[in-house]
């Protein structure tokens, strides 16, 4: 073969590492630059998260950087213009920050809660939460409340670890994998890497999802469940496992609260609480002595033998039962028999029973061992880790229902019965998880002018006494998190902030700061009316939300409804930390964190939001940011990250601490820390030694280490809570007999009684309970396509070529029975509103379900798209159909959310679908076009992106001469 030309001039190229942020997966990337332009973005082969691979989004990073929708300069709504009219004028950063600081200083000096600061798809909650605490407002949260708090909370209140991005299936050892309600997830590439591992090993993959797209395509078995019934299916599995005596007796005794004694005294304030001795020690029953004993001490003793099942009466005459007895009594009921739930779940009884038995077979008859000796928390040495190789992963399809918290707990219950939490082959926690149940942080309540909060705004209530309510039981927070509406709202309720603030319920605020959250569009339920609320004025002509500040990198719909716009950088233009204090990039067997570094030069007058936060905080004189003389402690974000310590030796970045940079996890600040990260590909990885890799809730070495590095406050065991006393406390409050705060309103009381079962429970989703289901016959759900999951990249010139319009999808036979043809225009109607959109028929869809791709639809004029873009003319939002409030019931207006956690119940939606009239086409509603922002470039009509002139590979003349243009078979192979 002739020599090849030099295609790439490597001398003109350099490779820089950083961390991707096209979604929340946070893969390591190597970016090849050529003359300052991005030649190629590829996965970093050494990176613990993605191991060299990269998804469609990550590969489209160039087009994010090239987006014409990038904001270019600070903007102020023109004085005299109406909010939402799109009239803005450029202002300088100095003027913008001066204006904002003045306003914030006044709020902070008078009534700090009048600042509400909510953040969207960011991963710097440790920083924004720190900032809010220093400001002194409890009105802070990130977007977990409308994302998947149910998964986080259910796990943290039950197993100490959770799905979401906080744990992973043991891809290397699992033999059976059940995936519930997952379109795509934060662990975008790891799930894909893992599925391939499973399939190449011959493990069975069962997908439970109303729709067969994405991962479900390669599942060995697809269960097209009816939305909102996953928890019921899980409890039917529990029924079968108990009935057939397939549960891990020893695991339950040793690692869960299954042997602990629960007081059986109905009608009293003690009913359902754990039996404790005078020292507060939870009690169990020791068969060795026939006596009640302290669970903790008995668990350490070789002489004790705790009863898993039993009903006793104490010397004081108190009747008690073990947790496991209560569980067996509940779940062995015929209500949970496969035949009883089959129709509701849309899964036949035989299949339910078979799946449960398959899991039991694999867990107990195909157990695995890892021959590594380890020591449990009692000091007992074990020669090996025994594994129950049944893994699960669950996500938004479970969480985005009003029964999601309990449904997720029900899935965890199946795992616990199988001994399949943090055992080899099962679901493994990622450090800093597991944590004690629940993590010992209480939500902040007290605020005072010019004073930082004493605790973080968000935390984990352990009973009604921990709620953020006043003496009259009224919510203290603007989003009503930690009120009777949502007592365990561990991530806040961002989706309620605008509605509550506009209604001055519970009070008025002055300034709303939104970071990277498109609350004017796809991140809000009831989008059109939310836009009206953002424009709403009181009788004096003042806006009900007086001042709205948005920080975003792009021209989103929310930008249009802001008074002050502070333009952010892209992920390739700034320093960032992905911190162990926040949501790190850990893998099950390694504690990891990461950074970003600027890859390309800034070409606009924009600033990283984290830099702006440090700047404003310093101007406002936050104690953590200024010296006693008022001078700045830190020169900026990088300096702050290097030198600020949460506790001695513990800061935002765990790697290369200590003066010499040789201390990891803990150590003095290292001025050279950023460079050490950069030298290491922008990530840090502490691999756990083999004896710390499993059973970490009870693993002495791991627990001691996790305390030493600040992950957990204690090194005692993390006892998994099959039964939640915390939930029972709330239920007692519902009955009005709790020794502490109890709600007064009948509806509040009933919600606590109905939804706070201390054992995992299932109930009909709230919207379904309240609407006419004969009229609203279909469940309506949505998902993001893999190539846009957790990103907003409809602006992305490459990704939108894959999809620029969404359709409503319906089961083909069902559609045909209703006379609906492919590509019909249909009306979709909910109790709250209606939309018109185009429909497609498909096979892989539950017959009672319609669905669409979410957030493809955009408002005209935004995101750098032309007004005739399909996103704004054929693409639609389901959000218009979803009310942020429940359909009217007996009592007051109440959030359309999980009654435990406040998780937005997006997928509770019930709709009717009918054909549009002939001639009716196009989406409805179609909101008015947004005006262009000043100083934005025109979007190009043609893109010809390249970083160097192509080096053509010419066909050698000799080749053309000898071979002509025709292949001659008789000449054989060339």
């Amino acid at each position, binding site marked *: 073969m002739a020599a090849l030309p030099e295609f790439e001039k490597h001398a003109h190229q350099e490779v820089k590492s950083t961390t991707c942020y096209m979604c929340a997966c946070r893969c390591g990337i190597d970016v090849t630059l050529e003359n300052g332009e991005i030649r190629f973005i590829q996965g970093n082969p050494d990176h613990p998260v993605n191991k060299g691979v990269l998804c469609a989004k990550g590969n489209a990073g160039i087009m994010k950087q090239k987006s014409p929708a990038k904001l270019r300069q600070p903007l102020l709504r023109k004085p005299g213009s109406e909010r939402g009219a799109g009239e803005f004028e450029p202002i300088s950063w100095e003027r913008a920050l001066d204006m904002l600081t003045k306003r914030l200083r006044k709020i902070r000096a008078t009534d700090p809660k009048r600042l509400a600061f909510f953040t969207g798809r960011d991963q710097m909650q440790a920083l924004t939460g720190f900032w809010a605490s220093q400001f002194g407002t409890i009105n802070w949260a990130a977007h977990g409340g409308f994302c998947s708090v149910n998964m986080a909370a259910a796990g943290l209140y039950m197993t100490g670890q959770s799905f979401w991005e906080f744990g992973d299936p043991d891809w290397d050892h699992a033999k059976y994998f059940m995936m519930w309600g997952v379109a795509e997830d934060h662990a975008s590439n790891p799930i894909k890497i893992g599925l391939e591992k499973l399939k190449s090993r011959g493990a069975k993959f069962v997908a439970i999802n109303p729709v067969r797209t994405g991962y479900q395509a390669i599942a060995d078995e697809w269960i097209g469940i009816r939305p909102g019934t996953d928890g019921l299916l899980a409890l039917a599995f529990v029924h079968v496992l108990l009935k057939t005596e397939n549960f891990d007796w020893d*695991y339950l005794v040793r690692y869960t609260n299954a042997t602990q004694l629960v007081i059986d005294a109905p009608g009293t304030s003690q009913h359902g609480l754990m039996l404790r001795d005078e020292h507060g020690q939870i009690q169990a029953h020791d068969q060795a002595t026939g006596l009640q004993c302290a669970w903790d001490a008995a668990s350490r003793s070789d002489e004790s033998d705790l009863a898993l099942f039993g009903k006793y009466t104490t010397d004081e005459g108190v009747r008690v039962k073990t947790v496991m007895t209560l569980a067996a009594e509940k779940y062995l009921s015929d209500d949970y028999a496969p035949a009883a739930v089959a129709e509701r779940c849309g899964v036949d009884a035989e299949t339910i029973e078979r799946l449960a038995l398959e899991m039991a077979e694999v867990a107990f008859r195909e157990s695995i061992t890892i021959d590594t000796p380890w020591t449990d928390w009692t000091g007992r040495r074990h020669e090996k880790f025994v594994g129950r190789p049944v893994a699960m992963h669950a996500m938004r399809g479970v969480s985005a229902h009003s029964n999601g918290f309990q449904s997720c707990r029900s899935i965890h219950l199946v795992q616990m019965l199988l001994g399949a939490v943090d055992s080899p082959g099962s679901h493994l926690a990622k450090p800093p998880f597991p944590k004690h149940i629940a993590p010992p942080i209480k939500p902040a309540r007290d605020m005072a002018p010019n004073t930082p909060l004493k605790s973080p705004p968000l935390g984990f209530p352990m009973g009604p006494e921990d709620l953020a309510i006043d003496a009259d039981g009224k919510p203290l927070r603007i989003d009503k998190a930690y009120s009777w509406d949502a007592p365990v709202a561990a991530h806040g309720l961002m989706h309620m902030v605008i509605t509550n603030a506009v209604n001055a319920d519970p009070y008025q605020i002055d300034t709303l700061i939104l970071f990277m959250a498109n609350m004017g569009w796809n991140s809000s339920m009831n989008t059109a009316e939310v836009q009206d609320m953002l424009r709403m004025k009181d009788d004096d002509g003042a806006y009900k939300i007086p001042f709205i500040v948005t920080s975003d990198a792009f021209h989103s719909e929310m930008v249009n409804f802001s008074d002050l716009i502070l333009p952010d950088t892209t992920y390739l233009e700034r320093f960032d930390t992905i911190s162990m204090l926040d949501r790190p990039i850990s893998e099950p067997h390694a504690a990891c964190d990461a950074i970003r570094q600027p890859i390309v030069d800034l070409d606009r007058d924009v600033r990283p939001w984290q830099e702006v936060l440090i700047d404003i905080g310093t101007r406002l004189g936050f104690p953590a940011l200024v010296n006693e003389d008022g001078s700045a402690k830190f020169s900026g974000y990088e300096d702050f990250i290097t030198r600020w310590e949460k506790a001695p030796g513990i800061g935002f970045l765990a790697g290369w601490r200590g003066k010499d940079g040789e201390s990891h996890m803990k150590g003095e600040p290292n001025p050279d820390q950023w460079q050490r990260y950069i030298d290491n590909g922008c990530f840090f990885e502490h691999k756990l030694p083999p004896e710390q890799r499993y059973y970490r809730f009870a693993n002495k070495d791991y627990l001691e280490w996790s305390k030493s590095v600040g992950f957990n406050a204690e090194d005692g065991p993390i006892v998994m809570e099959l039964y939640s006393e915390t939930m029972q406390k709330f239920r007692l409050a519902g009955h009005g007999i709790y020794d502490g705060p109890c709600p007064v309103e009948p509806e509040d009381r009933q919600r606590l009684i109905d939804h706070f079962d201390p054992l995992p429970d299932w109930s009909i989703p709230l919207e379904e309970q309240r609407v006419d289901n004969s009229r609203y016959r279909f469940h309506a759900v949505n998902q993001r396509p893999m190539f846009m999951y957790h990103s907003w990249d409809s602006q992305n010139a490459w990704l939108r070529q894959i999809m620029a319009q969404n359709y409503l999808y319906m089961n083909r036979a069902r559609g045909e029975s209703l006379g609906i043809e492919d590509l019909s225009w249909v009306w979709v109607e909910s109790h709250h509103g209606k939309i018109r959109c185009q429909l497609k028929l498909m096979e892989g869809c539950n017959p009672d379900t319609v669905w669409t791709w979410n957030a493809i639809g955009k408002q005209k004029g935004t995101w750098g798209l032309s007004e005739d873009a399909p996103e704004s003319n054929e693409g639609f939002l389901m959000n218009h159909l979803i009310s942020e409030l429940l359909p009217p019931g007996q009592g007051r207006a109440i959030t359309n959310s999980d009654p435990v956690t406040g998780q937005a119940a997006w997928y509770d939606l019930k709709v009717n679908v009918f054909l549009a009239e002939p001639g009716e086409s196009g989406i409805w509603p179609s909101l008015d076009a947004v005006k262009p922002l000043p100083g934005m470039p025109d979007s190009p009509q043609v893109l010809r992106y390249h970083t160097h002139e*192509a080096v053509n590979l010419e066909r050698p003349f000799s080749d053309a001469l000898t071979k002509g243009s025709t292949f001659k078979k008789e000449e054989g192979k060339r």
Partner: protein
Amino acid sequence: MKLGLVIDLDTCVGCHACAVACKQWNTSGTTGPLSDLEPYGAEPSGVWFNRIRHYEADVYPNSKTVNVPMSCMHCEDAACVTVCPTGASWKRDDGIVLVDQSKCMGCNLCAWACPYGARELDEESGVMKKCTLCVDRIYDENLPESQRQPACVLTCPTSARLFGDFDDPDSEVSRAVAERGGVAQMPELGYAPVNRYLPPREKPEVTVSEETRGDSTPGGAAGLIGKWMKRQKDAFDRFGKRTSGEA
């Protein structure tokens, strides 16, 4: 030499990573740029060497969803080469089918001839473009050896893409095809496509043993709980402590 791709339909989740990686590499590659028309407009379209098609087979509830990435098959008897009137289309000795950009006049004949839809006319450049198997990566000795792979192969999160020499029976691609029964697409057309698709693996079955199935205890919850209470007491009485299992 017979270079080509193997695509595993058992693990392809249809994520489009390979398609975008291809676009990204090749827009600055040997036949770049890969133009995009109306990138922010009503009908965004552009040049892509690799497109993912999604199909359903069978009917609910037994329907299957199948994702099929499609790019140039680098046919041994490539119709696109045969029909090219200028000699721009050619097949290298290593098997890669290429378009010499300096000889192509954009007549589109090759696109008509290709049954796989693998050819893409770049209207802005006025020439035909197609998968090069990343000829500008696989032979680049300035790249680490592990990186001398087509961009689509490097990026695939489910390792559903393999690259190699089908003439070498020991190559990864040849072995995968042999082990998994890799198939060509539409071989009946006679162009001898080189790329192979691995069909979905046989579904693993879990056989539930009698032991797992258990025997049904009469008396419902009370009966079972009573049985378990008796069992734990019996075990204690007999052995001084419970002995079930180990962990």
